[in-house]
């Protein structure tokens, strides 16, 4: 085969190297956005503290965190229809800590029109501190409530889960909220408000310590997949 100049497949004249590189990068960008069902790249300004992010990823065994803080993903073999694992952090601005008895968390969701999401599994991850008193009962009753959007913390709420936690040591605890999240998404609402009460002698062992950079920020995990085949956009969670 004679070595024809330029593109060996289509015979187009050779492009100037930089122009070719720029074209390839644009093609790669479009392909990635299309495969992720995104219209444009998300515009992220102030993100979740990296320390909280890395904690969540470690919990999900989503990958190993190298010394320099970069993340090395395990390559799972994708399910036949592309599934998603979403980690959503409570909007701390909305999380009022005023009520000492319970921790109020607000998760925001913006669902794209014309698509419906199937929640395969969803859990709320809460970090509970130890009571600190070795002589006390090391178990603690935790309750998770669903509260009406816009309702005042503590009023107009529905008990979702009650669970005894072992708080001999500070640790993470999970609460399954699959059905709650599915009902919430099916209802097309935007803000999911949960309250977590881990009260002991008037103090809430599940409250956030006030530092914004805490690695123990509560988060919600959901394995989801698109139900409709034609809808091209993933639920955008905020």
């Amino acid at each position, binding site marked *: *085969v004679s*070595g*024809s100049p330029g*593109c*060996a*497949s289509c015979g187009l004249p050779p492009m100037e190297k930089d122009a070719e590189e720029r074209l*390839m*990068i644009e*093609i*790669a*960008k479009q*392909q*990635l956005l299309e*495969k*992720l069902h*995104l219209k444009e*790249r*998300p*515009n*992220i*300004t*102030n*993100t*979740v503290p990296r320390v909280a*992010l890395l904690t*969540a*990823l470690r919990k*999900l065994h*989503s*990958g190993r965190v190298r010394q320099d803080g*970069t*993340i*090395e*993903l*395990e*390559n*799972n*073999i*994708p*399910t036949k229809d*592309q*599934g*998603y*694992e*979403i*980690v*959503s*952090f*409570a*909007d701390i601005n909305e999380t009022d800590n005023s009520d000492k008895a319970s921790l109020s968390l607000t*998760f*925001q969701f*913006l669902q794209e029109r014309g698509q419906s999401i199937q929640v395969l599994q969803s859990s709320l991850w809460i970090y509970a501190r130890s009571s600190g008193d070795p002589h006390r009962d090391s178990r603690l009753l935790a309750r998770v409530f669903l509260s009406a959007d816009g309702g005042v913390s503590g009023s107009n709420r529905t008990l979702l889960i009650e669970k005894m936690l072992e708080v001999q040591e500070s640790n993470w605890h999970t609460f399954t909220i699959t059905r709650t999240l599915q009902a919430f998404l099916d209802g097309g609402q935007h803000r999911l408000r949960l309250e977590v009460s881990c009260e002991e002698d008037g103090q809430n062992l599940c409250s956030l310590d006030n530092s914004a950079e805490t690695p123990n920020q509560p988060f919600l995990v959901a394995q989801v997949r698109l139900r409709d085949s034609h809808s091209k956009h*993933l639920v*955008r*969670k*905020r």
Partner: protein
Amino acid sequence: SLRCGEDVTVCCKRDFYIKFKDIQWDEWIIAPEGYHMNYCMGQCPQHLSGSPGIASSFHATVFSQLKVNGINTATTSCCVPTERRPLSMVYFNSQHSIVKTDVPDMIVESCGCT
């Protein structure tokens, strides 16, 4: 399969790696650090059709039989990916949430002639 080089015009795989930092996409893509957007290019003359990395399909089998029996066909053979792997990604899809997903068939591992 062959890696494309300066003097290779037959079907080969061209490596093309984009570092997300170089295109300022590392602000919203947490992992990986980049993307191997490899692609196939090059000619598939008659004697190469159906190899290497045969695009295993009934079409290739029939095509080979025609070739073995010297039956010249007007069909052309194309340089296509014969092996691909998924791309696992973790990215911010908004201020307070991240998504982890495995996008199938995103990275071309090898090329071959149909």
